[in-house]
């Protein structure tokens, strides 16, 4: 019988190795897998590459992971936000590497990794600083940049509801990067607010089919902060 639920965050994060690329869902405070990020801090993996839309705020969560010197590199679209003090300081000190990616290219690169597309062309960023060093080719009369898939060793995802097969549904803007990161992670770990009892989530309204999910932990976390 398939049952992807594990009993604890520690169990959910077992085996995350040093040097891993970790995809972290969420946009702003919504849909962010806070308990799993805390768990990753506990778990101890270091030399991480973190892929997330933002670069953490305050002294908790991603910011704390960075403050502890565990993040070698961050890949994101918008590292500068209210309260991203830890990142800013590490960046200015040259102690963290930054790969800045347009938000749509970030989303598409993650989806590509999940879909078996190793590379694709896009008009976004052509003719800008972010296209430097990249292959450019014209399509339909406009220059397009070649971008690579962005797979993760681990994806950390927050869902609103999950069933034992790992099927997921989200709540309003909590969907954001979570479904595509679930696709792009080699090991996809989910914290869910609610559990859907058998026979599981209605097959017509599953957003992330269980095939993309490896482990689920039930964390009735409550409302996002902010």
């Amino acid at each position: 019988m398939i049952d992807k639920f594990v009993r604890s965050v520690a169990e959910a994060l077992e085996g995350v190795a040093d040097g891993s690329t970790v995809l972290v869902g969420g946009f702003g405070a919504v849909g962010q897998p806070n308990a799993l990020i805390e768990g990753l801090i506990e778990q101890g993996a270091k030399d991480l590459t973190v892929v997330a839309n933002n670069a953490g705020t305050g002294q908790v969560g991603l910011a704390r992971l960075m403050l502890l010197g565990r993040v070698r590199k961050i890949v994101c679209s918008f590292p500068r936000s209210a309260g991203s003090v830890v990142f800013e300081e590490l960046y200015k000190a040259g102690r963290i590497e930054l790969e800045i990616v347009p938000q749509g290219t970030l989303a598409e690169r993650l989806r590509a990794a999940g879909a078996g597309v190793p590379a694709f062309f896009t008009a976004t960023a052509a003719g800008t600083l972010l296209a430097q060093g990249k292959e450019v080719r014209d399509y339909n009369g406009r220059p397009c940049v070649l971008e690579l898939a962005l797979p993760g060793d681990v994806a950390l995802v927050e869902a609103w509801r999950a069933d034992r097969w790992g099927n997921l549904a989200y709540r309003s803007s909590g969907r954001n990067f979570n479904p595509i990161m679930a696709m792009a992670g080699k090991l996809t770990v989910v914290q869910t607010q609610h559990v859907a009892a058998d026979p599981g989530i209605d097959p017509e309204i599953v957003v992330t089919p269980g095939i993309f999910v490896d482990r689920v932990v039930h964390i009735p976390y409550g409302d996002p902060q902010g």
Partner: protein
Amino acid sequence: MSEAMVGFRPLGRQQMAARVARDIPDGWYVNLGIGVPTLVADHIPPDREVVIHSENGLLGMGPAPEAGQIDPWLINAGKQHVTLRPGGSYFHHADSFSMIRGGHLDLCVLGAFEVAANGDIANWAVPNTDGAPAVGGAMDLAVGARRVWVVMEHTTKDGQPRLVERCAYPLTAPGAVTRVYTNLAVIDITQAGFVLREMAPGLDFATLQQRTGAPLHRAP
């Protein structure tokens, strides 16, 4: 010397937003950038149904919720609490940016540091700073929407033109903008460059040209 003293009345932020809103037809799908563009939503005439898209996975974004009615799970790309209108929908980031990059938005309204006479837009990075760059969805929006309109102050705080021959700031996208709404004018960008459509009340062409960094053409 204030603008009023030289005999014309520049538009305020809400007036600029209202001016943009007046040009958005019923039924359009529109993404609004941060700042003055966000204010545009409040000025859409009530007889028009305009569907607002937010990058983080919303179509049919509505106004801020009333006090006590906040859904903490429902934010927009500016991370403000919002509401969803009837007919709206939720989707993930790849689908959201497919709408943007796939040419499905009728319009995107953006703020900018500079817009050039060839349609180039610079709105994401300041030159020569040691801070981390941050691009968000700016490049996707500038490249993907069917029309890109910019709303911004006509000049910088120290009087330098923001409408220029060629952008000095790092580009967001080349040749993307087709119309600019400023506190002083409405200007189309055509093959010929900047074409003046409208001026603030009391303003004259020569004064406007003086504050603009590239030739202004009168509308035919």
